[in-house]
């Protein structure tokens, strides 16, 4: 188990290194001069030269990448030995071209909004998806099964950027039940936090629960035909115990896998959701950075969300072994 974890962590780090190298390198193909991007429209040639020196853009690509990686692990100092020394502590991802803020600080600043969306929505979609899937499986073939699976099929074909606008039109503009979506700190304004997050949560949960509902239903129906379920029934266990302890337990593994990957992807930035609802999270940070060609922020957000994806992958595989006794990790 331990050596497996270690191996996965090492290979995850290697993948992350390659992802970061690709992201870092790709912007050097761009004809735009990063120093000029950083400087803005009214910029003198002297200033550009100065910026190039400050941001160490006058170095070769491998040197720049090496210093970038070093910055992530041990921090880095720009303009070393001069009075204007800039100390960027680890994990250092450089400075935004737009606001001059450290990218790490920006990420830290935006993470709570994204995490709020991800956790709130995931609880909702698990509840909706699992319960409707369980009901469908137990009442297979009845109108309630057909209805919930029909809704699930439709929901799985809908888009956040469409449903989000429609719900916003109904609940914010027409009925005025909710304020415009946004983000307030749950610690200081818990009520506002819930009200502003409600629409993103509902939209995401509605669309994503469809997949969980279908997975739960299919999984449970398959397990119901297994011999061990018949044995449990023969032992005289109650239906409730059989369905919850044996059938659902057997069907849960693929659901956990999909859930881990969805959550990991979402934590790295709910790009479309944040864009539609105008929520200042990581996704909005990255779409804004792309619009402004703010290269350090783009690089930072891509690497940051790749970390979430890779970590989620490792966690899911470990959980798999815990949940499914048939899987043995070597």
């Amino acid at each position, binding site marked *: 188990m331990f050596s497996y974890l270690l191996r996965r962590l090492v290979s995850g780090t290697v*993948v992350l290194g390659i992802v970061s190298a690709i992201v870092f390198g790709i912007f050097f193909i761009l004809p735009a001069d990063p120093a000029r991007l950083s400087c803005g429209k009214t910029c003198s040639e002297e200033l550009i030269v100065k910026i190039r020196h400050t941001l160490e853009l006058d170095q070769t690509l491998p040197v720049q990448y090496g210093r970038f990686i070093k910055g992530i692990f041990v921090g880095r100092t720009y303009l070393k030995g001069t009075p204007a020394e800039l100390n960027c502590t680890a994990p250092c991802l450089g400075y935004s071209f737009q606001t001059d803020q450290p990218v790490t600080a920006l990420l830290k600043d935006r993470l709570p909004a994204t995490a709020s969306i991800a956790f709130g929505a995931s609880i909702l979609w698990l509840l909706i998806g699992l319960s409707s899937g369980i009901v469908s499986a137990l009442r297979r073939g009845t109108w309630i099964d057909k209805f919930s699976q029909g809704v699930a099929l439709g929901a799985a074909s809908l888009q956040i950027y469409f449903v989000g606008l429609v719900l916003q039109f109904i609940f914010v503009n027409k009925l005025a039940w909710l304020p415009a979506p946004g983000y307030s700190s749950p610690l200081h304004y818990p009520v506002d936090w819930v009200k502003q997050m409600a629409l993103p949560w509902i939209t995401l949960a509605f669309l994503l629960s469809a997949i969980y509902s279908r997975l739960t239903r299919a999984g449970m129906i398959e397990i119901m035909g297994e011999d061990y379920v018949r044995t449990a029934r023969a032992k005289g266990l109650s239906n409730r115990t059989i369905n919850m302890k044996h059938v659902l337990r057997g069907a849960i593994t693929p659901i956990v896998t999909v859930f881990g990957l969805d959550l990991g992807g979402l934590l790295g930035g709910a790009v479309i959701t944040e864009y539609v609802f105008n929520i200042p999270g990581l996704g909005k940070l990255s779409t804004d950075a792309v619009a402004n060609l703010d290269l350090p922020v783009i690089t930072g957000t891509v690497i940051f969300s790749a970390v979430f994806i890779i970590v989620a992958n490792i966690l899911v595989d470990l959980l798999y072994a815990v949940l499914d006794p048939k899987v043995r990790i070597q």
Partner: protein
Amino acid sequence: MSQPAYAAAQSVTGRSPSRMAWERIKKDRTAKVSGSVILIFIALAILAPIFTWIIHSSPDAFHTETLNQEFGTQPLGKLGGVSGAHWFGVEPRTGRDIFLRFVFGARTSLIIALSATVLATILGVVIGLVSGFFGGKTDLVLSRTMEIVLSFPSILFALAVMPVLESVFQGWGLPQGNGTRITVMIFILAMFGWPYIGRIVRGQVISLREREFIEAARALGASRTHLIFREILPNLWAPILVTVALNIPTYITAEAALTFLGAGVIDPTSDWGAMLLASVPFYSVDPMFTFIPGFALFMLVLSFSLLGDSIRDALDPRSSR
């Protein structure tokens, strides 16, 4: 595969597996309905220029006379200006005909999604075949590559590389504009899509390559190319077809999402994602403008998903819904 030996009985006509699958599809009502919806969308996309002739307008023509004359912003009349001349209403601020933009948008969506599907499938199948067949170091490198591609936050990265690739493609002599942007989008979608099909093909090849008929062909002295493309590939068309059918909707929505986020097709080319993006400032006063591209996208994606499910069920009689 060889001919089944028992097909000799005279009264029984031999039916190939593909023929049986086709017959199952023909009996499936869901498949018929969803297939027809898809055909209607394709027909609309192909016939788009005919509508410009029927309506006497073009998707880019401004009809400012249909807008509120005091402010020149909102369409006059009910439901975003629906009328005999403008079947789906007109766009706020410009008065462009929404029906025409909808049919030409179907063109853009389908061209990008289908080309990306074809490109990703070719790449995925070839790489999956090579990776699974050769094994060893080749397999290690190729499956690691798949793993790396799948670790990218794809939407985010696609957004970021759009401008970069656009300038690269322009450097290769492609003109500035939507033609190049569409090419770049197809390329990016395929780049992130191929590992999904590659993984499946690789898995299938690994189990097939140990089978007796491969061994027999090898013993007869068949070349590797012959083994891969003549012996293994024909056995894979069912899983490939199912994956392709189920992947098309993903490409349609990915294209619309990228365009919606501002990294795809831009004005004046019609596109559903672009229409949704353009509708954002107006959704509270002119919901019809949001509804049309959104609903079209929903119908197309739903139909492709349903058809994909039906194809899967037809090719694999054991699977049941």
